[in-house]
């Protein structure tokens, strides 16, 4: 028991292991497939949140357009699935059989040339990662090289989200417009709608999510991760230490975008459709709140944040539809005003010290503790009193996001 407690408090691997236990074992055992499918959907949002931890928490760059990348990844997958669902046999009622139904409604008589490659799964899989990355690269390169950051970057990403939404809706013959791409059925002949497929997709999502967390954790542990933290603190110092700061920002922006794309694709597989409503400004900002609730510095926290906010959304909109927006409002304001480090911050400030204190009677020598991804680089020694303010970035009155 004691050893467990030690392990729980000392290693960030423990956090990942507990998360894995929750999503791979506890939730599937306690929920029916309908609810589990919902969790799977939330976990696909968690990819965005994990990306935002890297981008916003570590990189100090707030993007309000992550929905764009989520959408691009989702559309790449949806286009493939739609083409598979639109074989001439099942679309024979249309005036042009063999093309997606919405194209037929919009008087298209043949498949647009840029849809053709999406007949092949490998193309769709590559596009789901590469297209978001390319867009992120273009936007990021143009902005970061000119040192646009902070608020300006946030607003411009918002404008990008708006442009893409208007474009998708306006070009409905090619994109499905407001309705989106619906009625997706099979992937390479495998029916993605039945229960067994839902289970498989759920576990695949879990596996990929944990993989993504490990990837990000690895990046955090490399020099690049240290540099991101350093840049957030003193960007000029990093620049005058011989680093091209913009490149690192572009990298982390692309990384976050690819995670979004992956999340979008998994979303489409589990939910069975994609629409422009994920690309816009509102969902993009909502995605930021997942990371904020979980703790903008904590990868594991971001997943819990995504789960919690979405559970809340589902629960409250089922039970108290009128209250839901008020609650969401309180969540935004509360997380920013009272708990800037989110759930992970609460855990570090209240739960962990308690776990540590319980260990004291056993008078074990304090073990070398690895720094947690949370604000403080070094945990205080055993018996540390939580009421003593820890030196953090906030100590200067500047929050982690101020950089």
């Amino acid at each position, binding site marked *: 028991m004691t050893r467990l407690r030690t392990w729980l408090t000392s290693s960030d691997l423990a956090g990942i292991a507990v998360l894995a236990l929750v999503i791979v074992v506890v939730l599937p055992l306690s929920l029916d497939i309908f609810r589990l499918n919902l969790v799977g959907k939330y976990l696909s949002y968690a990819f965005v949140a994990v990306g935002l931890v890297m981008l916003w928490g570590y990189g100090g760059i707030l993007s309000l357009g992550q929905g764009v990348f989520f959408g691009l990844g989702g559309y790449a997958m949806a286009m493939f699935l739609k083409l598979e669902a639109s074989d001439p046999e099942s679309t024979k009622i249309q005036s042009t059989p063999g093309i997606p139904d919405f194209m037929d409604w919009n008087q298209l008589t043949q498949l647009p040339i840029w849809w053709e490659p999406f007949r092949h799964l490998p193309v769709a899989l590559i596009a789901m990662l590469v297209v978001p990355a390319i867009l992120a690269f273009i936007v990021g390169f143009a902005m970061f090289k000119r040192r646009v950051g902070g608020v300006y970057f946030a607003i411009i990403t918002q404008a990008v989200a708006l442009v893409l939404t208007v474009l998708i809706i306006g070009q409905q013959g090619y994109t499905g417009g407001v309705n989106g791409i619906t009625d997706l059925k099979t992937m390479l002949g495998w029916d993605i709608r039945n229960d067994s497929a839902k289970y498989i997709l759920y576990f695949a999502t879990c596996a990929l999510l944990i993989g993504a967390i490990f990837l990000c954790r690895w*990046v955090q542990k*490399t*020099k*690049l991760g*240290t*540099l991101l*933290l*350093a840049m957030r*603190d*003193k960007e*000029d*110092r*990093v*620049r*005058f*230490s*011989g*680093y*091209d*700061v913009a*490149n*690192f920002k*572009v*990298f982390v922006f692309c990384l976050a975008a690819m995670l979004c794309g992956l999340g979008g694709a998994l979303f489409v597989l589990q939910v069975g459709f994609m629409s422009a409503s994920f690309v816009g400004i509102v969902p993009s900002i909502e995605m930021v709140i997942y990371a904020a609730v979980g703790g903008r510095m904590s990868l594991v926290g971001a997943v819990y944040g995504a789960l919690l906010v979405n559970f809340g959304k589902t629960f409250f909109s089922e039970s108290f539809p009128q209250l839901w927006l008020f609650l969401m409002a309180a969540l935004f304001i509360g997380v920013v005003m009272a708990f800037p480090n989110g759930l992970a911050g609460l855990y570090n400030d209240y739960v962990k010290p308690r776990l540590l204190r319980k260990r004291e009677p056993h008078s074990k020598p304090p073990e070398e503790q690895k720094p947690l991804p949370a*604000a*403080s*680089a*070094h945990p205080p020694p055993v018996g540390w009193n939580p009421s003593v303010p820890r*030196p*953090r*970035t906030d*100590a*200067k009155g500047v929050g982690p996001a101020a950089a």
Partner: protein
Amino acid sequence: MSNTDFVLAIEDLTVSFDGFKAIDNLNLYVDKGELRVIIGPNGAGKTTLLDLICGKTRASKGSIKFKNQEMTSLAEHRIVRSGIGRKFQTPSIYENLSVFKNLEVSFPRGRGVFGALKFKCTPEVKERIESVAGEIGLADQLETEAGLLSHGQKQWLEIGMLLMQEPELLMLDEPIAGMSVRERELTAELLERICRNRSMIVIEHDMEFVKKIAHKVTVMHQGKILAEGPMEKVQADPRVIDVYLGH
């Protein structure tokens, strides 16, 4: 004059902000192994000069040559990579990283995105960090969070971070500001030690300190060079006394 023996050759350098000439047709030459101190009253353009050299501010006109290579059009990180290190006026360190990490980040390897991903803290790197930490007197503070250091230690840490890069030209902006007498002495010793195999430009106000370290002193006033030479000669210059020392 195209090629010189100087480490740094600045010619006809001018920068103006909305018509105000912060640096006005300035010429400055720094030798190999020289420790040059720049003094001058507030607003003389000292910090701006360093900004110009390291690329933080772009020149309106003129040339800056480092080892006969033009610097004015290079990006900041390229200037640094060619061997110029710069310490800022207020200590500029990564407060929430440990001293070790601060130094590690400054190690001049793995500077590209993928280089940084591949970078490993090899024994060689570790050794170098430890030796620099010894040099700046922080050997037993390696695991301390940098934000917890005293003001003077922060200044040293920043110098140490520059040393990690092994620059050929080191520029320090008021390195002893806010230091105690004892710390000032230690810093003077440190600067003397590290200047053995490189050139340095130091901006400083403390005349005692300047006397102690300077090889040559440049006095700036209103964006121009007022006087240049050994400390004693400069101190005797009536114009200098008039604008600066006399106050």
